[in-house]
């Protein structure tokens, strides 16, 4: 009886170890699952171009003030918008230029990450083109001008009349893969 018992014990242990292993892999599987989930539901859609809704209309009666902000984190770059603010109607497309300069004598790769205020602006901001969709590589002392093209749709709540769009450049290790979709 003791024999039979220890055999079934070992079998049980094997099953549980396999289950443990599956759960470890599951932890890693949550990463692509999370990304897919965000992509399908449109949450966290920071790095892909948007499509403008067909029924987009320009609301001539309203003005929105937009403030542009630019930061670098840990890169030897200078990064600024060529205009610090703008005034547009909801639904009206706008093109803003940004400029980066690599102040160092090495090639540096960076990735811009957007952030908005108010936070729910991302629901109403439709970006067609942005330097933040890909990584940027700057040769020593190179200067680059890059556009951002977007529309703020007219669904933006009426009480909002000023918004801020901010970009921060982070350094990517040399040879790092481009940002995943």
């Amino acid at each position, binding site marked *: 009886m003791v024999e039979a*018992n220890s055999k*079934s*014990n070992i079998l*049980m*242990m094997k099953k*549980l*170890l396999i*289950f*443990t*292993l599956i*759960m*470890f*892999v*599951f*932890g*890693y599987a*949550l*990463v692509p699952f*999370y*990304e897919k989930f965000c992509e399908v*539901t449109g*949450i*966290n859609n920071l*790095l892909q171009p948007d499509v403008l809704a067909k029924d987009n209309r320009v609301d001539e009666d309203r003005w929105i003030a937009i403030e542009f902000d630019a930061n670098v*984190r840990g890169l030897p770059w200078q990064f600024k918008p060529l205009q610090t603010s703008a005034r547009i109607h909801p639904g009206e497309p706008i093109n803003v230029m940004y400029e980066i300069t690599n102040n160092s004598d090495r090639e540096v790769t*960076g*990735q811009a*990450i957007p952030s908005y205020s108010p*936070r729910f602006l991302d629901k109403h901001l439709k970006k067609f083109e942005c330097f933040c969709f890909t990584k940027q590589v700057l040769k020593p002392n190179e200067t680059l001008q890059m556009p951002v093209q977007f529309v703020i749709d007219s669904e933006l709540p009426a009480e909002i009349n000023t918004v801020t769009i901010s970009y921060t450049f*982070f*350094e*990517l*290790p040399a040879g*790092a*893969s481009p*940002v*995943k979709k």
Partner: protein
Amino acid sequence: MAAVHGDAHGHDDHHPSGIMRWVTTTNHKDIGTMYLWFSFTMFLIGGFLAMGIRAELYQPGIQILQPELFNQFTTLHGLIMVFGAIMPAFVGFANWQVPLMIGAPDMAFARMNNWSFWLLPVAGTLLVSSFFVPGGAAAGGWTFYPPLSTQGGLGVDLMIFAVHILGASSIMGSINIITTILNMRAPGMTLMKMPMFVWTWLITAYLLVLVMPVLAGVVTMLLTDRHFGTSFFNAAGGGDPVMFQHIFWFFGHPEVYIMILPAFGIVSEIIPTFARKPLFGYSSMVYATASIAILSCVVWAHHMFTAGMPTVGQLFFMYATMLIAVPTGVKVFNWTATMWRGSMTFETPMLFAIGFIFLFVIGGFSGVICAIVPIDIQVQDTYYVIAHFHYVLVSGALFSLFAGVYYWLPKWTGNMYNETLGKWHFWLSMFFFNLTFFVQHFLGLAGMPRRIPDYNLQFADFNMVSSIGAFGFGLTQLLFLYIVISCIRSGEKSPEKPWDGATTLEWTHLPCPAPYHSFEKPPIVK
């Protein structure tokens, strides 16, 4: 009974003596004892950190701990109490009690049992020694969110290794417990005849093998982000720090039930014994435990209502969280119904068990309050949350551990503890615990943030009260240490069956103290 005594004589102890006895032991009782002493040691270390925190918060301004060190204290207090004190203590109980309560001679894998214990001191040493490395210990909170945890120094690496080791130990312990319970029950002990403590541990062990590997995965991601160029949580590399919170809490919320389900089990043994009535609604207790375990896996994002989430997500996690109150309520009503018209006596274990129910319900209710999204957004990261989870972890998990120690000390040592001192321990703990944590509700509602070494003057009075309570609570636990040691060394000899209402196998079939080898011939359960 005679057969049992014969059993004890048949196996004269032929184990090594001195320190090697403890290093090489494969006996579930020895290992259980070591688990309990280890966790008590970590409890004192974690308690020391808590005293440091409360001493700094005694008055506004920076007096004792610089902010960096204060953050290390709060972080390590949480990690040590959760992973070093509460969890190993319950595993210690499982080691001692599960084989005794199901009539098994030992745990299923005795050598693995030894190994899973001896990993713990290694991990504990890593955690404690991280205070002394350059840059100090991890300081980003016990939940080690990135980016703080991807930026910290060597201390964070030590913490990551410690968590890995503790996770491995817990997983081995759980595999052992599941196998023991499923394969080694005495003849006639069907699943639905198992004592509640064994049931709660079976379910807890399944939760552990479900979520501990996920924790191991997420700290491994953190490690590769720190040192091997991956960017799971690095926004610049395409990762997402919020994803860490999702994966962490996928582990973290079941984890809180891992710490409370065995407590439910202990209380479910003690209440019937001292009410001298069988547990009311045994099968509903089993199903409630299982439902809590299942629900605990789908509520994790209620820790993240302010991290950014669509309303529909907030609503789902809010309702799912509130649903847990239902099976928990079933349990509380069952305990109350067990006491109803029972012939109750109030020895120390019963006092702690009733104290547990009373205070755990307060913690449970503040949990339901925190589950409500708009309120949570208000109290997120304030002292209200601190008060909430100390009500469920200190007066919940810890009080049940005290109750269990007093209840089973006669079985473990053969001696009775000092009942008068035990009662003092209970009433002092009760008083000082509430003094410490009840006022923290008010601080939280007034807006005092957690993890802050200095605060606005308006919070001064309640913080002073809370600190005085904390010092009292800390000192009271030294009384507990004294009671346990004096029970072991010079306690009065315990009667064969000190609790006349006890009905589980360890009381009905074994003498006090339980012999070194028990149930070599399994008892027959009718």
